[in-house]
């Protein structure tokens, strides 16, 4: 049985926070070159939330766009990037250079753009992770869903549920000019991959 998330100590948390930081930094750089604009980033917040707190803290009924990728290779994991619907709208408008469109619904081409944004952001996040850990990480194609935050979070949370009663999430905030284009990353290694990930970082022994 793998390490439980509830057993993570401060060192583990620091390592995960740093991973979040580097990964999100890479993602911000990718976003900046994609938009050809300056993108500022806040220091990511790494939190461990109890399942029962999730709906209060994130707003379970809030409409969000979620992009999910399966990760294969040396570890099996699920990575999800969650954005406010306004942030998703801002990003799509910026990327496509269209006059500002409003509203919560996206056309097919806009959905495709969103998937691509998620793909690039999570891809750069993963490549940072891969070069730090020396693990091979192969992402799947991106999947998009636009729905209640709680419903989308439940997908990675269920995977966490097999190991513990809490979920690890990394909140990042990107700012372009005065538009917030932030989002949350959820990286969810499966039961066995947790050990592999922390071992590859030398945080836990091979015992």
């Amino acid at each position, binding site marked *: *049985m793998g390490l*439980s998330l509830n057993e993570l100590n401060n060192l583990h948390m620091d390592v995960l926070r740093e991973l979040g930081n580097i990964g999100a930094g890479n993602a911000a750089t990718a976003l900046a070159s994609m938009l050809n604009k300056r993108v500022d980033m806040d220091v990511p917040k790494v939190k461990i939330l109890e*399942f*029962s*707190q*999730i*709906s*209060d803290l994130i707003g*379970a*009924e809030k*409409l969000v766009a*979620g992009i*999910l990728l*399966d990760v294969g290779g040396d570890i099996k994991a*699920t990575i999800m990037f969650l954005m406010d619907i306004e942030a998703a709208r801002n990003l799509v408008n910026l990327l496509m250079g269209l006059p500002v469109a409003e509203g919560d619904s996206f056309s097919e081409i806009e959905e495709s753009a969103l998937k691509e944004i998620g793909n690039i952001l999570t891809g750069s996040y993963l490549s940072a992770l891969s070069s730090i850990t020396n693990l091979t990480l192969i992402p*799947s194609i991106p*999947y*998009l*869903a636009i*729905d*209640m*935050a*709680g*419903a*989308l*979070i*439940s*997908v990675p*949370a*269920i*995977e966490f*549920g*097999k*190991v*513990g*009663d809490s979920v690890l999430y990394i909140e990042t905030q990107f700012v372009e000019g005065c538009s917030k284009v932030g989002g949350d990353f959820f990286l969810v290694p499966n039961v066995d991959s947790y050990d592999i990930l922390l071992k590859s970082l030398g945080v836990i022994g091979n015992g």
Partner: protein
Amino acid sequence: MAEMIKVGMADLKAAVYPNALTTLGLGSCVGVAIFDKTTKIIGLAHVMLPSSKQTSNNTNIAKFADTAIDKLLDDMIQLGANRKYLTAKLAGGAQMFATNNTSDIMRIGLRNAIACRTRLSELGIRVISEDTGGNFGRTIELYSEDGKLLIKTIGHGSNII
């Protein structure tokens, strides 16, 4: 004054008339709503995983279909519910992302719904209606007045079962 009591993810609660129970943003999770029409006692569980027997980390009994339903039944009987008159309604169990992947994590909604039906049937509690599956999230509200279960969605309307 009737109160709307929140049930979190991997959580369960029982309540008496005139209170109502709600759980927000059900995705692949399943909301199990149980009602006793004779005493107007209600119970709601937000189940994440089908079985407590497939993992060694099973201390939170509200997380699994089998143990959560057992506990919910106990809690309702504690409040005075009459086991003979219990009926159940299910909501949730969606597949949020349309992937080609048939791995466990993707089919979990379906498996959760099946596990809930199985456990309820083993306990002799009849499932009188359900709104499960699909690819969208649901927020549900269970009323003690008549056992009405209100299902709200974004873009898929609302529904009473």
